[in-house]
């Protein structure tokens, strides 16, 4: 019995360690590479720690490319997208999960439609729509595009999370006279925080990493976003690996911070609301 327990624990440990290594190694390689001169990147046998530690890539990216401006722009767009799409998805998701009305199935399917064709072909028509309301070459236009692209996804995601919340709690609240909105904000929201956190992280990443929409919608230098800035590092036949890796590492930092903040919400709030009969 004790032996079985130990074997179980060891097996668990092995799985944890192996999966962590496999997931983290490429990231380590990326960060390590950003501190190496280009030619060291192709050495065989490879260097596992940077033998020639250099930081020119970072100084180039931050000083010459003025990368932080683009980071600021991307942060603005990403947060705004979240601010628009999460509330809509929460309300819509609740309605999809709890109410039954004709055409519900249709709406669910319809929300998926935008994703069934590859994104690059959505971009030009989207842009045409933005031009018609004079919001092209503007961060606000980009926010709208991102929000429209992200919301159906978040809607479906949150709907499925909300479905897992037992109805009894709401029912008792409704009986006690609470309005639907109150129910949503006081009961559903805290209980579905993990779902909301997931949807928020997803929306953030979608907006942060988006290249296609940003490419077409944004022209002016002052309002370009991170993926566009990274794209500009590629020039004709030359891709300067150092700055590419450095800018990618820098681009990861805000996301990392977001993860760290939201990771807690992925677990909290769930043991609230245990209903026993």
């Amino acid at each position, binding site marked *: 019995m004790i032996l079985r327990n130990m074997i179980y624990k060891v097996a668990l440990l092995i799985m944890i360690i192996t999966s962590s290594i496999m997931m983290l190694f490429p990231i380590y390689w990326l960060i390590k590479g950003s501190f190496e001169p280009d030619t060291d990147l192709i050495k065989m046998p490879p260097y596992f720690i940077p033998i020639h530690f250099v930081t020119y890539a970072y100084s180039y990216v931050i000083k010459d490319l003025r990368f932080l401006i683009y980071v600021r722009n991307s942060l603005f767009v990403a947060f705004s997208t979240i601010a628009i799409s999460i509330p809509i998805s929460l309300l819509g998701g609740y309605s999809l999960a709890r109410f039954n009305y004709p055409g519900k199935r249709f709406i669910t399917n319809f929300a998926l439609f935008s994703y069934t064709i590859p994104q690059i*072909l959505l971009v030009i028509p989207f842009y045409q729509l933005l031009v018609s309301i004079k919001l092209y070459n503007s961060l606000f236009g980009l926010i709208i595009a991102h929000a429209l692209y992200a919301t159906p996804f978040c809607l479906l995601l949150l709907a499925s999370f909300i479905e897992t919340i037992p109805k009894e709690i709401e029912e008792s609240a409704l009986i006690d006279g609470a309005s639907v909105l109150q129910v949503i904000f006081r009961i559903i929201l805290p209980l579905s925080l993990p779902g909301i956190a997931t949807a928020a992280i997803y929306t953030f990443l979608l907006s942060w990493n988006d290249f296609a929409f940003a490419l077409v919608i944004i022209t002016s230098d002052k309002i370009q976003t991170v993926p566009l800035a990274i794209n500009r590092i590629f020039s004709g036949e030359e891709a300067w690996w150092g700055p590419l890796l450095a800018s990618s590492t820098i681009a990861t930092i805000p996301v990392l911070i977001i993860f760290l903040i939201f990771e807690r919400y992925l677990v909290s709030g769930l043991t609230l609301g245990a209903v026993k009969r």
Partner: protein
Amino acid sequence: MVLPSLFFLGLWSIYPLGYNLWLSFHKVDIGHPEGPFVGLDQYISLLSDIEVLKSFYSVTIYTITVTVFQFILALVLASIANLTFKGRSLFRISMVLAWAIPVIAAANIWKFMLWREGVINYFLMIWGFEPVSWLENSTFALLSIIIVSLWKTFPFVFICILAGLQSIPEYLYEAAKIDGASMTQRFLHITLPNLKTILSTVIILRVIFIFNWFEMPWLLTKGGPGTATTFPSILIYLRAFLAYSLSEGAAISMLCMLILLIFIMLFFKLSR
């Protein structure tokens, strides 16, 4: 209450879809900038184009493999992450970090690792194996894209399942343990049923996303070697933007949509 927002959304999806639909029935390319109406001809010629058929074949293999493995791995690892142990937060973060890296960076760093003098072959060699041409050999190229895509998209599924696991009340497991259920039984009869809604939503969303994914395959292999990894999304970019045959691209995308819609309908039927 939700209807206004949905209608608004719907409107904005209709135009792009309609636009592409129109394109697919006309012929807009370098020889015909005005785009005469050609009806179904475009579709017929595409469906008899070996390259197009092969691309759908490759992408199906790609999508199925990545989705299946994603879910298996995510279920296992999320269950582990759900247990309480020291360093659990760290474990979760490390599972999820791959998602944070921009696709350009991920693709390029894997390219470095996968080429013949890369670090992966280095590990193979010190264990006595022959180095593999990961990206230059047709079969291995597809395998490599699968692995890298798995690495990059696994975190999202992991998080979703983890979040779902969190909402399963503890007492269910306790009761089962008292009744003497084994770990596998608890998993099959408590975990899975409770995850069903989330699982099915995420599966559909993932399948659609991976099927239409452009950035990763393009950045890793640009469709090569030859046509081994040319998926429909890549084909669309090549034909619509580089060769300026916009309508061919639109038609291929309509085919993608058709296939995915069929899949969605079948999936919904099956999950009753």
